[in-house]
């Protein structure tokens, strides 16, 4: 057994012991530390495989006998899992013991991490599907252990139901692949014909797409992610949907053989839908964690744009850009995992401090919780795609890929690239609008509730987890060029593309993005301008309000800030408003106003589906009259029908 396998197995064992330890009384913090060590060891093994390029353990097999192994792509995902899970577990050391059902949540955290790692290292269908189902069920159990109210149970039901119905696609795709002995062997499926290939591609899109939260299969995601304990929300949004993308990448890029062009266009289209849809509905959310969950859908869309572009480049024979677009998608997967875990952890810390997640009940928290606030600010700027943070690096790469798709090739493909480019630019602007609003409502301005005014800074362990992730956002934004070549090498045929090693992103056909130089320039210029400005300041004055005194009612709200956009996009968002005036003896006593933006996918897609299903069920119920004579008639009709069929020779 090699050193790598030993490291990985020790890591898995540590996770297992950590799970048992967490369930024991009074061992929770030590168990969480052990879990962090375990997942870190797994990550080290993954990173070693990624950097060396040599797979360890078993290879992919179409047999049903269990096999475990790590190849560079699994290694990349394992490394991302470790990078995000270790800070999340450090955070959990202070977060879980003070929360509900700490021992169950602590043990299930390790089980969840094991399931995630299991999907990544599975080399056969049995292990993959078993880990896949565990990965779905364990967070559901953790949510139910921590919260027991009816709304949460309904959300968990929607989550489990949707991911299982959609998850059938995963089973169909993988079992079909195994039946054609095509797992790990792209030539096998090509021999099976285009029909089978289409079936596998569609089944994988539906199966993995549901789990990844691709619009329009996303409806469960904004319900389930916000109700979990913060560190599990973080891992669900940060890692679980990425593991679904891992499955999609495996099937589409490695096992499908020569991918048809429609698949690339489909991925781009779904990417545009998810990116724009996710961020638009994130904008109109009132609950911070729900907003973050919608935003995950947006980022899955951005990843899909990179993957779709990569497929189309490969189809056109442009190996270099196929590899760059693939690397853009992987880099965005890593970046999004990092800042989304950071933001969910920060949301958990803020919820503990303020007691609520309503955006209009926070405010002024940068002053009361400076370190949590600073980490949150960095995460928000990264997710808004601002230079010089990591979100900008991967969005820049994706934008460049789409632009280069527009530079040539068939008219339809090039125009798809141009539309994708415009949509991604729009998404970035919407994300900026969304997160500057969140930063403003949560961190800046006056406190918007008594609880926010009395908030205190989070415990040291929670701060450490968040600050480490904020540091990663900066490092990956400043030095994205260091990770680009190993990621590009993961693309099919990507190990032969010439990409030099630079700190910045210096690519042919671009004006280059030197992250470090840009960060230094911005930092030095800002410092120089601050010094030049001097310290001469008059005494602080109240904000100008045309001479009125400021009162809390004058606070700008979340809904107010997005009002111009909601008016412009009225036909897409379809906001609902209800005004209720209570009259008593001719005078209005009370006015109640409520407004919300329903999820378009639910009003257009899910509600009609559910209604049709219920109507079909009602029709079927008419057959069941409860009258014995009716059932006897059914039997007679059946026998008669069979006799007719036999007589006509239809049954042979």
């Amino acid at each position, binding site marked *: 057994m090699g050193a790598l396998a030993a490291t990985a197995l020790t890591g898995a064992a540590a996770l297992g012991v950590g799970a048992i330890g967490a369930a024991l009384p009074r061992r929770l913090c030590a168990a969480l530390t052990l879990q962090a060590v375990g997942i870190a060891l797994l990550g080290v093994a993954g990173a070693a495989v990624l950097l060396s390029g040599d797979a360890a353990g078993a290879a992919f097999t179409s047999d049903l006998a269990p096999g475990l192994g790590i190849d560079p792509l699994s290694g990349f995902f394992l490394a991302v899992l470790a990078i995000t899970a270790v800070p999340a577990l450090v955070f959990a050391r202070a977060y879980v013991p003070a929360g509900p059902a700490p021992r169950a949540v602590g043990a299930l955290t390790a089980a969840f991490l094991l399931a995630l790692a299991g999907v990544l290292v599975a080399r056969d269908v049995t292990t993959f599907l078993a880990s896949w189902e565990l990965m779905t069920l364990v967070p559901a159990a953790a949510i139910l252990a921590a919260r027991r109210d009816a709304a949460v149970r309904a959300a968990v039901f929607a989550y489990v139901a949707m991911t299982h119905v959609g998850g059938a696609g995963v089973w169909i795709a993988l079992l079909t692949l195994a039946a054609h002995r095509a797992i790990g062997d792209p030539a096998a499926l090509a021999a099976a014909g285009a029909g089978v290939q289409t079936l596998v591609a569609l089944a994988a899109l539906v199966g993995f797409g549901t789990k990844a939260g691709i619009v329009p299969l996303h409806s469960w995601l904004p319900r389930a992610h916000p109700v979990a304990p913060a560190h599990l929300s973080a891992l669900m949004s940060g890692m679980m949907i990425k593991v679904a993308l891992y499955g999609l990448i495996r099937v589409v890029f490695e096992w499908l053989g020569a991918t048809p062009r429609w698949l690339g266009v489909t991925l781009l289209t779904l990417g545009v839908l998810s990116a724009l849809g996710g961020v638009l509905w994130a904008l109109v959310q009132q609950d911070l964690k729900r907003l973050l969950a919608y935003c995950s859908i947006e980022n899955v869309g951005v990843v899909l744009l990179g993957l779709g572009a990569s497929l189309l480049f490969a189809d056109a024979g442009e190996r270099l850009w196929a590899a760059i677009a693939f690397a853009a998608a992987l880099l965005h997967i890593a970046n999004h995992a990092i800042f989304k875990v950071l933001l969910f952890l920060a949301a958990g810390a803020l919820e503990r401090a303020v007691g609520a997640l309503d955006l209009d009940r926070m405010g002024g928290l940068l002053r009361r919780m400076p370190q949590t606030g600073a980490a949150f600010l960095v995460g928000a700027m990264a997710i808004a795609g*601002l230079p010089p943070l990591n979100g900008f690096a991967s969005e820049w790469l994706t934008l460049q890929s789409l632009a280069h798709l527009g530079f*040539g090739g068939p008219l339809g493909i090039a125009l798809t690239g141009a539309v994708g480019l*415009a949509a991604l630019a729009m998404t970035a602007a919407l994300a900026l609008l969304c997160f500057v609003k969140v930063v403003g409502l949560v961190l*800046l301005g006056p406190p918007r509730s008594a609880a926010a005014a009395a908030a205190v800074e989070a415990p040291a362990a929670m701060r450490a987890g968040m600050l480490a992730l904020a540091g990663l956002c900066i490092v990956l934004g400043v030095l994205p060029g260091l990770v680009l070549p190993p990621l590009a090498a993961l693309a099919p045929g990507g190990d032969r593309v010439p990409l030099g090693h630079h700190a910045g992103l210096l690519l042919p056909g671009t004006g280059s993005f030197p992250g470090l130089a*840009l960060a230094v320039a911005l930092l030095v210029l*800002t410092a120089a*301008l601050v010094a030049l400005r001097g310290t001469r300041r008059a005494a602080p004055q109240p904000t100008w309000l045309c001479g009125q005194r400021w009162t809390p009612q*004058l606070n700008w709200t979340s809904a107010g800030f997005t009002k111009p956009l909601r008016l412009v996009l009225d036909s897409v968002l379809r906001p609902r408003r209800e005004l209720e005036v209570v009259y008593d003896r001719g005078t209005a006593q009370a006015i109640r106003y409520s407004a919300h933006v329903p999820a378009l996918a639910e009003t257009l897609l899910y509600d009609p589906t559910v209604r049709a299903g219920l109507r079909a069920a009602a029709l079927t119920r008419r057959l069941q009259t409860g009258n014995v004579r009716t059932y006897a008639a059914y039997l007679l009709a059946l026998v008669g029908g069979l006799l007719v069929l036999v007589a006509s020779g239809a049954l042979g």
Partner: protein
Amino acid sequence: MTAANAAAGVLQVAAVGIAPLLPGTIQTVKARLQGRRGPSPLQPYRALRRLWGKSAVDPEGTTAVYRLAPPVVAACLLSALAIVPVAGGAGGWGLGHDALVLAGLLALARFAIVAASWDSASGFALMGAARELMFAVFGEALLVLALLLAALPAQSTDLVAMADAAAGTAIWAAPAHWCAALAFALVILVETGRQPVDNPDTHLELTMIHEGPLLEYAGRDLAYLQWAAAARHWVVLVLGAELFLPHGDGFAGRVGVLTLTLAALCLLLAAGETVQAKMRILRVPSLIGLACVVALAGAGSWIAGVGV
């Protein structure tokens, strides 16, 4: 580095000082067109000198976000000046010359000033900020589409290569170039906050867009922000001239033609402000959307090989 690039580098540094002349010229020409004598084109410099001598004021209860915003905005625009080539050349500042990085820097500046508006909790600042970001949602899509069109002949998003590819007369045979120029004209209006998108002369808080978030600032903070607004004029007008309008021959010729083009663009903006009233805010996105369609049609015509 060639002599032309070194000279272009000097011009990029000089742009820090020249930029306020652009809005100054527009104001002067506009006043003349309206039959007023108006201020001299040097008025922005006088305003900056006056502000430099005054002390800054913080609204009560603000944090470092409010105080850092003006230097961050100015630093973004200074970096943007280094990225935008002048007369087809640029000094070796090590920041690259990528069109999309430029878009990112402008977005960072926008984030900083809007975050500062939230910090001051000023209703007028936030009203302007919300509108500006709403425009930006559509404006950003138009900006990248216009840049894509300009990048098509060069097959690169390197601004220096894009400027070189726009030289000569052959490019004007392609309808795509006309579409690109049209689309970018609207980008100029949105980014500089000129009529019919925004009225830079307004003193009524309720109608402010770009001016709104600046309301609370005073002294050197305001000087930075006003300089940044002027630098934004420089960035988009020079880009417009370099990527979408005719160039001269040789470095001196290019500088000469660039100067004339900038003067002509200022004249056009002033004339536009004179004859055109401000649009209803909610109509602006349809206008930008129309320009996006024009840009996409241009991209289609280029890829289909019309006039290439």
